[in-house]
């Protein structure tokens, strides 16, 4: 494999609250190569969105990144001064948000919003920026892009708006796109259309993509590799087929059993019992232990470290469901 576009090493992000320090992201490490899609899966509050914001350096007080490296093409973004970070943000790394109605400013026309983003990063005339914006809209499958540029966000459908948002992320040809549940607000048919187009565009341009979602089925069709997050940790990571076919962490197994279509007809769904723990006072041991069917005394007392099960398939668990060659 070539050098990764993005390499995150031991990332830790904390929020100081009145009730105590919340460690939202802890010891998170992963790589994304050019053209590769990494799916980050987890429940609400598992730290997946904060991971995305941490990469972009958009953690607001009272939060701050306390440890780790974020290497983009070998440069540690955490050591860059804010002015250089500004230049990278939106240009080399773009972000797509969950709700397209909220991501586009309701009182500004599409062209205003696209052109100002281009002009913030490229030294081009407004006319040229408009051309670039129209090209980008055409690329994501919006018919008559030149006329559409003059629309306000409310004049477009949800799917159309999400295409606009994706076009805005793609138009400066970034090295990396971080997509935070971008299709969650859309209906299933539009979702699959957009997914397949995103897939095609990324493969063409060899853009790396981090796709943050709670939906394993989306990840199954889109991602090359998956990282499952729980309570701020990556509990299991591996190639998409390995991880979905032979999940080794009980939590991953639990996620898969809660998908309706993965369970044979007529059988009951198996939910994961219990709730995600409060991140303020995580237990000394494995964060998943209170909900885990496999947990024993060791899991309560000691936090499992990351170990490799097979090549590229790693997890944090004392009792993996699958015994790999390396263990």
């Amino acid at each position: 494999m070539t050098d990764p576009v993005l390499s995150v090493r031991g990332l830790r992000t904390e929020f100081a609250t009145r009730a105590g320090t919340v460690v939202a992201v802890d010891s998170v490490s992963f790589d994304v190569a050019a053209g590769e899609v990494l799916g980050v899966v987890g429940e609400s509050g598992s730290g997946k969105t904060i991971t995305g914001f941490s990469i972009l350096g958009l953690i607001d007080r009272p939060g701050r990144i306390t440890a780790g490296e974020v290497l983009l093409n070998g440069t540690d973004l955490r050591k860059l001064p804010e002015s250089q970070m500004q230049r990278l943000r939106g240009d080399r790394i773009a972000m797509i948000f969950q709700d397209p109605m909220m991501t586009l400013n309701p009182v500004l026309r599409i062209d205003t919003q696209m052109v100002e983003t281009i002009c913030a990063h490229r030294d081009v005339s407004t006319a040229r920026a408009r051309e670039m914006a129209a090209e980008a809209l055409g690329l994501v499958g919006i018919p008559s892009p030149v006329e559409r540029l003059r629309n306000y966000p409310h004049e477009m459908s949800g799917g159309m708006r999400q295409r606009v948002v994706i076009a805005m992320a793609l138009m400066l040809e970034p090295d990396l796109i971080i997509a935070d549940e971008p299709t969650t607000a859309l209906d299933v048919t539009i979702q699959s259309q957009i997914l397949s187009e995103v897939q095609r565009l990324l493969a063409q341009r060899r853009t790396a993509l981090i796709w943050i979602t709670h939906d394993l089925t989306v990840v199954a069709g889109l991602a090359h590799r998956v990282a499952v997050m729980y309570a701020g940790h990556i509990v299991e990571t591996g190639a998409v087929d390995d991880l979905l076919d032979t999940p080794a962490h009980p939590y991953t197994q639990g996620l898969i059993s809660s998908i309706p279509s993965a369970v044979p007809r007529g059988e009951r769904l198996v939910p994961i019992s219990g709730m995600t723990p409060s991140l303020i006072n995580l237990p000394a041991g494995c964060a998943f232990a209170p909900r885990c069917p496999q947990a024993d005394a060791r899991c309560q007392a000691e936090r499992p470290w990351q170990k490799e099960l097979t090549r590229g398939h790693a997890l944090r668990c004392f009792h993996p469901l699958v015994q790999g060659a390396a263990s």
Partner: protein
Amino acid sequence: MTVTRADTPLRRFVADYLTSPLAVVAGLGLAVIVLLAVFAGQIAPQNPYDLGQITIFDGSLPPGELGFEGFRFWLGSDEQGRDMLSAMIYGLRISLFVSFVAVGSAVLIGLGLGLLAAWRGGSIEAIVMRTVDIQLSFPALLVALLLLAALGKGVDKVIIALILVQWAYFARTVRAAALVEIKKDYVMAARAAALPQWRILFGHVLPNVMPPVLVIATVQIANAIAIEASLSFLGVGVPITEPSLGLLIANGFDYLLSGRYWISFYPGVALLITLVCINLVGDHVRDILNPRMQS
């Protein structure tokens, strides 16, 4: 809602505004009032402050009376022989000028400080908002009276006093609205796209906080006219050489009980109509722009 290609926010606003006949009438009334004030010099039958045009022989004529030189005083004259109708049109000009300039400046100051407080937070926000709290805990008229007592009379001083009592309303509203907007995803998206801060603040947040500001501005213009009239009535407002509607009312006050009601009465009616028109327009604008009242 049907959506057409040319459906700009402004057009939608105008279309919504035209649905209320009362608001349309009030809007037209307000337009006439503003035009009267702007073109006072061309419209008024007499220049009431040109001593060559007025004569003491025409003093205290009742409405409709013919003057010494054949000039008809439709709304009567005051004790110096000024045509009341002309004096009112000129007075309206002063009243509107003072209130529009004062509210306009207060909006600018309030927008600037409110946005700054919401965006920066911390000690800047605390200082601005506590100042607003202190300011708003005193009655506006009291603050204005104290200021004018210290500054002295004059149109410019009345404007300064009005700005000082009104900026706090705008700062508080803008901060509250901006705090809501800043939390929205489009601001985060703009930051993720690394737009310059001023661009996010003035290009993205500002247009979204304008609706409540517009509503309060219309109400505050009516308030400013009323406060200015009160101040002038109390004798600390505009100087006698530039009488506003409030000062005209005060001038006639001494003669009310001697039967010469028109010197106070007609300026009072003009003030009332002006305030009612502005308030009706403001109410309807609020109804249109209030998201909770939209279907």
